[in-house]
């Protein structure tokens, strides 16, 4: 398969998704656009409730029944995934786009043997004999680094540790031989040492199988490890997007600043810059910039008018009025600037 690095495999355009709730419509995703190029890893970073999981559920066609896609397109292979019928989606889900969930225990069927759970996907994706399916499943288990695959084939999920379970989930996601792999916080439930191993595994199979990966997380350390490009989401919008270097070394949106400086790293001594307040109620999303109420750099216009996306470079965009030519010049917070200098100096 020839790899054209600039070929766009998936394109999300102005996606808007709301949920029907008692209090009204919860506007979970409010105009999200991003694309995924072949062979790259795009990370989506944000807090819980920022709409990152909802966006990828729309791509997989597994939105909850009370969700409404209000507008937007998800272009994939000449199709618009928001309009594909459930029947046709069966051919895409798993076979073309694979998904790894956050919690490996609840993603697996507790009363079905591991082997069966993998071969089930193989049988669904194409007509093969059960011997062949078993052979393929053992290959997959070997590929994701499960020792003694023959014996493990007949075990149940509870007999596996958290890291091993996540490897099984990855094996299942790979069974249909997808070209896009979506990882929804795959390591949040795991220990750091196990997390490091799983991230290495995902990177390895991405190289081997020429996968394009969408990686969802709230851990900026994991983002730095995995991502080629980063989209920062807040209150249902992408507030800043750029390459990994641009986001970590030249962040432009105050929310990205806050995210980067709110967690201590191993050198931090000074008081943390906490973000005051909580994310807005998405039934009544605020007018203007949703982050304005928690942003000490907010100007009057932030509360009145939504900022457009300002272009900083061909790959770097940010939606904040601070980038408007008429806005007062605001420098990076000192703590953050010091940290960036330190990071650039590290080898």
């Amino acid at each position, binding site marked *: 398969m020839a790899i054209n690095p600039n070929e766009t495999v998936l394109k999300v355009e102005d996606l808007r998704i709301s949920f029907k709730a008692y209090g009204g419509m919860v506007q979970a995703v409010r105009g999200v656009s991003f694309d995924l190029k072949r062979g790259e890893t795009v990370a989506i970073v944000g807090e819980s409730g920022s709409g990152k999981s909802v966006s990828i559920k729309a791509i997989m066609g597994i939105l909850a029944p009370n969700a409404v896609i209000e507008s937007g397109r998800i272009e994939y292979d000449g199709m618009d995934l928001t309009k594909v019928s459930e029947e046709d989606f069966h051919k895409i889900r798993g076979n073309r786009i694979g998904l790894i969930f956050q919690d490996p225990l609840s993603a697996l069927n507790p009363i079905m043997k591991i082997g069966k759970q993998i071969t089930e996907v193989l049988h669904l994706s194409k007509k093969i004999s059960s011997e062949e399916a078993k052979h393929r499943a053992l290959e997959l288990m070997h590929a994701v680094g499960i020792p003694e695959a023959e014996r493990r084939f007949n075990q149940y999920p509870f007999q596996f540790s958290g890291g091993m379970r996540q490897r099984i989930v990855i094996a299942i996601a790979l069974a249909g031989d997808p070209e896009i792999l979506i990882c929804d916080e795959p390591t949040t439930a795991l220990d750091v040492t196990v997390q490091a*191993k799983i991230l290495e595994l995902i990177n390895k199979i991405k190289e081997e199988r020429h996968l394009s990966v969408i990686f969802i997380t709230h851990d900026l350390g994991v983002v730095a490890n995995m991502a080629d490009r980063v989209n920062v989401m807040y209150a249902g919008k992408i507030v800043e997007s750029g390459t990994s270097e641009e986001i970590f070394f030249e962040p432009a949106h105050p929310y990205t600043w806050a995210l980067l400086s709110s*967690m201590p790293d191993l050198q931090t001594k000074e008081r943390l810059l906490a973000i005051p307040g909580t994310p807005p109620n998405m039934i009544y999303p605020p007018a203007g910039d949703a982050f304005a109420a928690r942003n000490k750099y907010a100007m009057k216009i932030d509360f009145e008018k939504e900022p457009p996306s300002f272009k900083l470079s061909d790959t770097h965009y940010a939606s904040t009025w601070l980038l408007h030519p008429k806005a007062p010049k605001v420098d990076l917070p000192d703590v953050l600037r010091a940290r960036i200098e330190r990071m650039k100096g590290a080898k």
Partner: protein
Amino acid sequence: MAEESNYILEVKHLCQHFSSGRGKNKLLVKAVDDVSFGVRPAETFGLVGESGCGKTTTGRTIIRLYNPTSGEMYFNGRDIAGPMTKDLRRYLTDNIAMIFQDPIESLNPRMTIEEIVGEGLRIRGMKDKDEVRARVHEMLEKVGLTEEHATRYPHEFSGGQRQRIGIARAMIIKPKMIIADEPVSALDVSIQAQVINLLNDLKEEMGLTILFIAHNLSVVKYFSDRIGVMYYGRLVEIARGDDLYRCPLHPYTKALLSAIPEPNPITERTRKRIDYDPERDHDYSVEKPTMVEVAPEHFVYCSPSELEQYQKQLGL
């Protein structure tokens, strides 16, 4: 550990074993196995390790949610490992309070915030409702909530606010020591910093001693004066935070440190992870390992030959 009186909490050879099944199915889990450490007044001692390493069990045994299998524990010189009497329970709950990981599960959904936070005072015999209320309001103010919150129920609050309520409940009895079991790991990134700052402020204001249990090493490093690293029920290394991160000695500590993802694309792309395999990294068939003070304030669990190697590494 010569100067015993220096410690407000002292744990010596603590073991906490859990058994299940009987007969040939009997299974003994050594959740905490021969753990010794001391915490000085107004110090924050961090316990780190992976899930299942026994860090939570250690915290819970100290506050006597479990009865220790063996070992000694002293708080302010008083034995707190002995049989549970009414007097001992009162002593423990007066002096040590706990903050839990999950702020939703640990608050009673049928009680208002005033009842939850004031419960400790009522149990201690404060009958005057107005006085309880005044103290609750004062405490809520301190943790960054307001008086109006007092009449609400837990479900009306966000995760960060619930954790503040948990902190208020722990602090209202003015304990000498707090055991904080993963107090921020269930919270969102932007909220974690708020709670860490709050704990830091309270610590300084009230001169608190904190036993901080967590798996996030950057947070532990930031928050703690000294850190103990646990692996499979054992403490393998104790050191001051800076020392531990600058020159980790035990191979498990090295493995753990090498696995932390840092928010820095430059270092992340070239990061080398170190694996830890106790079978491969240690040979304890001849020499038995013990906890040794390699450098001042730096203890490692090692055998005599490993000790030599570690001392060389430190340039001693």
